[in-house]
Structure formats: structure tokens, C-alpha cells
């Protein structure tokens, strides 16, 4: 395993210390238990957004703490959801008296731990609402399973709901915005290589030199199937097809198109992917009105990419454009 780390068991805490040192004006890091909060929080009278999940997806979630996005993030160990006590502490630290929204990626661990945190917050008299993100079309949806994973739409929901909270909307309204982002988003990803969990020291799965994993999540889980390596343009078609069909996205729809790198894929390649995606969407009669290209929700050192489409409306668009000032997303 070749990584810029010290003791593999210290990866999460040391990265958090580095994050704190690198962004002292934006955020504060607490290590026991682990959570990250806005440096200027809690914001009295504002709905607070709290998210969290396993580490290894950086900049998600800790890099999205700041004005216009998250009030707090709870990082778990690598690929392991955080615990209820972290979430409870983060909730108290972020609460500005207007309620707290949990943005929860749909993984059993995240769901259960946030569920217990919700019970703990209720005991403290803090009003909490939760929105589940489950945008991954690679997973067959069914009432009788754990359902679809939360992937790319998480970034969009955190940005857009964050802007809604910043505007002073109520807990129910902010939750509705986050839910709407999730309902209007679909994603799918592929891996060129596995990732290596520091405490494990070996790649989670082995891929041949000419193979890709199709339908991966963000935890180094193997995907739905293995296929031959192919040109970037064909990979885009492989990803866009199921996404477009699923919602479905239809001619005339205005969309935000998001090409995401899995951690070890350079920007040069992501732009090659985006090029074909933009072309394909135009061919299908969709109007791409906003774009995001970069490594925003990753899987350690995995090479690969995911595509997310969000069907926007005027409100979502305005909220997307609203100012944001976090380590990983900044504009306006």
C-alpha cells in the first residue's frame, strides 16, 4: 500500500487535524467525539444542516462545512458510518434553535446510527428532520431490500438545502428542498481500479488490466458487474443510459450535470468524460443549465467516475447559484 499516511489507524484524526489547520477561518474540528462545525456557528434562528458518514469520501462531508452548506459533519472511520454520540454532539453544537436537518446517505449503517441520534436529539428537545439520499440507479430498488445507495446527489442536496437554510426557510421547507433534490437526481458510477482501505492494506477487489467495475458505490464495494475496459465515450453512454431512463429525464428538461472523480482520476480525464456527456444530453434534447466537474465525493484512491443528473426547477437553480463558502465549494 502506497499512501501519504502515518499509522493507518490515525488516518482519520490526522486528516481532520490537517483540515482544521488548513481552514481555520471556515471550520472547527472536534476530535472526541469527531465532528466538524462552522467556525461562525451556531447561527441563531437558522435551520442547521448536519450530515456525516464514513471517511474516505473527501471532500464529502467535512469539506462542505461552511456558509451556505453544512453546519456540521460527522466523519466516521474509513467507510464506516459515524456513531450516534458524535451525531448528538454535532447536533447540539450546530443547533441554532430553528431545528436540525440530517442529510443521510442511504446505507444501513448511516440510517441506523442517524436514527438513534434522532432519538437522542429528541431527548435533548432538539427538533430533527431527516432526508435520505438514494440516487444510485445501479442498485435495483425494492421495498424488501436496503434500497439504493446515496451517492452524487448528496453533494447537490447539501449545497441546495444549505442555501435554503441560509435564506431562512423553516425546517420543513429545507427538508422538502433536500427531498426534492434527491427525488430529481439519479447517478451511476464505474471504477477503473479498486481502492485500498488503509487498515486493510490491500485493494478491496482485484480488477484485470482490461476490466472495469460497473455500478460501483463509494465504499470500494464491487459493482453490479464487471465489463471490458472501453473508451471514455462508451463509458459515458453506459452510465447515462440507465440514469436517463430511470427518472426519466425527458427532452426539454433543464438539468444540472455533474461528473465526479472517484479520487485518483485526474481532471484531464473528467473533462473528457464531461465532453461526451454534454454532447449526449444535447442529442437527447436536454438543456444542461449548470455543470460540476471534479472529485467531490470519492472512494479513497479509486480511479473512476460517476455521473449525476439533477432535473432542476427555478427554485433549485436559484439555490444552487446562491453563495457558498466551504473548503471544497466556494462561489458567489
Amino acid at each position, binding site marked *: 500500500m502506497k499512501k501519504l499516511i502515518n499509522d493507518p489507524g490515525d488516518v482519520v484524526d490526522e486528516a481532520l487535524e490537517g483540515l482544521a489547520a488548513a481552514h481555520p477561518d471556515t471550520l472547527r474540528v472536534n476530535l472526541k467525539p469527531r465532528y466538524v462545525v462552522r467556525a461562525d456557528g451556531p447561527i441563531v434562528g437558522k435551520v442547521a444542516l448536519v450530515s456525516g458518514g464514513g471517511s474516505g469520501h473527501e471532500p464529502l462531508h467535512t469539506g462542505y462545512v461552511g456558509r451556505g452548506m453544512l453546519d456540521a459533519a460527522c466523519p*466516521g472511520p474509513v467507510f464506516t*458510518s459515524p456513531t450516534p454520540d458524535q451525531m448528538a454532539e454535532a447536533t447540539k453544537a450546530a443547533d441554532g434553535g430553528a431545528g436540525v436537518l440530517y442529510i443521510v446517505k442511504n446505507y*444501513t449503517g448511516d440510517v*441506523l446510527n442517524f436514527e438513534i441520534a434522532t432519538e437522542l436529539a429528541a431527548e435533548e428537545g432538539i427538533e430533527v428532520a431527516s432526508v435520505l439520499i438514494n440516487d444510485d440507479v445501479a442498485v435495483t430498488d425494492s421495498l424488501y431490500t436496503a434500497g439504493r445507495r446515496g451517492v452524487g446527489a448528496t453533494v447537490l442536496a447539501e449545497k441546495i438545502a444549505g442555501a435554503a437554510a441560509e435564506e431562512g426557510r423553516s425546517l420543513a421547507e429545507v427538508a422538502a428542498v433536500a427531498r426534492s433534490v434527491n427525488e430529481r437526481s439519479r447517478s451511476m458510477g464505474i471504477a477503473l481500479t479498486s481502492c485500498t482501505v488503509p487498515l486493510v492494506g490491500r485493494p*478491496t477487489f482485484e480488477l484485470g488490466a482490461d476490466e472495469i467495475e460497473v455500478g460501483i458505490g463509494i465504499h470500494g*464495494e464491487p459493482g*453490479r458487474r464487471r465489463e471490458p475496459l472501453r473508451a471514455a465515450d462508451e463509458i459515458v453512454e453506459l452510465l447515462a443510459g440507465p440514469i436517463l431512463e430511470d427518472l426519466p429525464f425527458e427532452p426539454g428538461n433543464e438539468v444540472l450535470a455533474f461528473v465526479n472523480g472517484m479520487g485518483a482520476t485526474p481532471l484531464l480525464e473528467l473533462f473528457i468524460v464531461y465532453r461526451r456527456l454534454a454532447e449526449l444530453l444535447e442529442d437527447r434534447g436536454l438543456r444542461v443549465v449548470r455543470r460540476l466537474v471534479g472529485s467531490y465525493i470519492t472512494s479513497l484512491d479509486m480511479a473512476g467516475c460517476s455521473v449525476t443528473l439533477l432535473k432542476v426547477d427555478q427554485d433549485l437553480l436559484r439555490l444552487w447559484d446562491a453563495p457558498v463558502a466551504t473548503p471544497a465549494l466556494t462561489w458567489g
Partner: protein
Amino acid sequence: MVAANRNYLTALDAAIGDADHGSNLDRGFTAVREKLAASLPDDTGAVFRLTGMTLLSTVGGASGPLYGTFFVRMGKACEGKAELGLGDWSAALDAGVEGIAFRGHAEPGDKTMLDALLPAREALREAAARGAGLAEALAASAAAAEEGMRATTPLVARRGRASYLGERSAGHQDPGATSAYLLLKAAAETISKSASGCAPMPPAR
């Protein structure tokens, strides 16, 4: 027990999950051992409860809330008891297993830890019904868990991370069912060593 099997559990989880089940439980049970070493409550219920609360706040993932709830519920069932007879063990396991089902909404055959735990609690109930000794009963329960664990291999997962793999999850043994069996086996072995039953769950190793 957990520390010794850390890499084994993680390897199982690498095949159909995210390669962390072993380190998750190792982190949790290491914390439990430290807590119990610092002060071991007399009350078995309190031991279980402390174990559960510690797992809840140190494990994370799916298994943290599930095993956490398991032990907290067992603790409630054993409240105030310094020693546990077979009936107490059976009632405790019932409560724990129901806690997991309540938290995780899994059904039998979903390829989860429940597939080891449900047969284990049945075996314990039966042993109690036929008046078996505690050590024998716990051994039977662990054996049933082992069988349930093995039976997860062909299943297609419907809960947890393995469910994302769909058909590809078949052919692999479930990590959570495996850790559940290992916990029950450790309990059976401890009780069998301490001869006449009653020691609470050992500070897992």
C-alpha cells in the same frame, strides 16, 4: 475472539461489503474490554448494557447499532441479576435478537447476522424446554448459529451493503452472521470453562 478474527471478518466483508467489519468490531470490543476492566459491574444486566452502549458509541456502521441494540436489550432482560440461569440466557437472547430485528427490519433469509442469531435462539429455547444444562445449551445454540452462518453463503443479500451486489452476493458467507456465531461460540466456551454457567459475556478478546 474478535481481535483474533479481525482479518477474517474483514476479508469476508471485502468480498460483499466494504472491508471493515473486522476492524469495526475490534474497535468496539477493545473499548468494551477497557470499560469492563476499569470497573466490572456486579449486575449482569449492567455488564450487557455497558457493552451495548460502548458498542453503540464506538463501532458505527451497520453492526454498531445492531450489536449495540442487541446488548442493550439483553441488559434490560437481565437487569438486577448477578447470575444467569439457562432461562435467563434464553430470555436475554430473545430480547437481543428482537432488538436487532426491530432496528434492522431484516427478515430471515436476507443474509444478515439474524440468519445466525434466529436459529441460535431457537436452539437455546429448545434446550431450555428439554431441561438441558447451561453449558450444553449454549453449545447447541452456537452450533445452530454456525449452521445458520454457513447457510448464508448461497443467499442473495436483501439487507445491508451486500444487497447492492444483487446476484453477485451469492456464494459468499455473510460477515455479520459470522461474527454473531463467533460471539455465541465465545460465550459457550467461556461458560463451559467456568463450569457451572453464569459469568456474563466475557470481556471479548
